[in-house]
């Protein structure tokens, strides 16, 4: 395996491409996520998105935030060569929802708010609570890991150039927001 600090910079684009692909998928094939996790009724864009354009000499950063913020500017930024560098997401099961953000450069998850469980009232309840909470946290991390795995499999296949990229380009230039 190559040196991690070299790999961090050399392949950071994979994380940004992953998030950009994810946004495209959320808008064009929302049923896709049920195939990864049958509990998932919808994966939605949350209240924050950061895009970075690294085409020029300096990095141009665009942040879109706020509940109900329009994503038109984000799409415009994509059309100018930016990629999604950070994305807030909401994983819905119908009954519960998980909110979290993920960064493209290191795939770090932040602000992860899983649903419940209520804090334990006694030390005896701690183990049950902890395992329940861990399960809810790991559910989302495993889900994202599966999505990234699917993305990588696509990214290194010929399908990326022949099918995915044309679909991404079409979406990029469509007004479907």
């Amino acid at each position, binding site marked *: 395996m190559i040196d991690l600090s070299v790999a961090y910079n050399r*392949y950071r684009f994979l994380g940004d491409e992953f998030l950009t692909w994810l946004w495209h998928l959320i808008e064009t094939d929302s049923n896709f996520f049920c195939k990864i996790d049958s509990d998932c009724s919808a994966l939605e864009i949350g209240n924050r998105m950061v895009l970075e354009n690294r085409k020029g000499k300096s990095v141009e950063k665009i942040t879109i935030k706020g509940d109900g913020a329009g994503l038109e500017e984000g799409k415009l930024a994509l059309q100018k060569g930016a990629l999604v560098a950070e994305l807030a997401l909401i994983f819905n099961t119908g009954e519960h929802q998980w909110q979290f953000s993920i960064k493209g450069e290191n795939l770090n998850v932040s602000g992860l708010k899983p649903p419940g469980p209520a804090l334990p009232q006694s030390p005896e309840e701690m183990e049950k609570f902890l395992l329940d909470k861990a399960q809810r946290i790991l559910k989302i991390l495993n889900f994202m890991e599966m999505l990234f795995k699917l993305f990588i499999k696509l990214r290194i296949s010929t399908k990326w150039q022949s099918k995915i990229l044309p679909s991404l380009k079409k979406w990029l230039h469509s007004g479907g927001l």
Partner: protein
Amino acid sequence: MGILSSAASITRYRVDGKIKSSVVETVAEGLKKNAISEIDDDAIEKAVGWTSFETPFQPNFDGSSFVYGSLFVFSLRIDRKQIPTKLVKKHLTLETAKRLAKTSRRFLSKDEKQALKEKITSELAIRMPSTPNLYDILWDYEKSSLYFFTNLRSVNEEIEGLFKRSFMLPLIRIIPYTAADLLSDLTDQERDILLSLSPTHFLN
């Protein structure tokens, strides 16, 4: 922000390798040997070590106290004493004046000043309580996965060093490249393609 917080930040790791002898005993041993030491009555300004998830101020790794279901759960604790620079400066000025008056000299040498500063910092450190910071850890030993509840780079570096010293197992941080290489079940041929990838041109 740990496991009990309503919102968590998480860095994922792959644990590289397996423990050769009894797993729970070896982990307990590593945790005990590298448990946090109290520095409140000491001149030390920083301590880093493992502590128990449920009793972080009384580390206890006896038996299987850190085993929850199939997970090992414990915390990294970093205790720090932050001595304000202005406080050091105040004491340094007063002590310098005292010494000069005693010796009827006009200046202290550079080395004397440095030694005096170190003495003052050390005396203040003994009197100052440390501030503890806790970062929770979920270790799924069977899956060689570890989830560390912070994204702070400096703290990530602390856990990577301490974990290797404690269990003789390196942690590999999950970033796009390692997620692709280690978690995506790639064939050798696919791995070669991965190595040669370059950014996609989304624009025509």
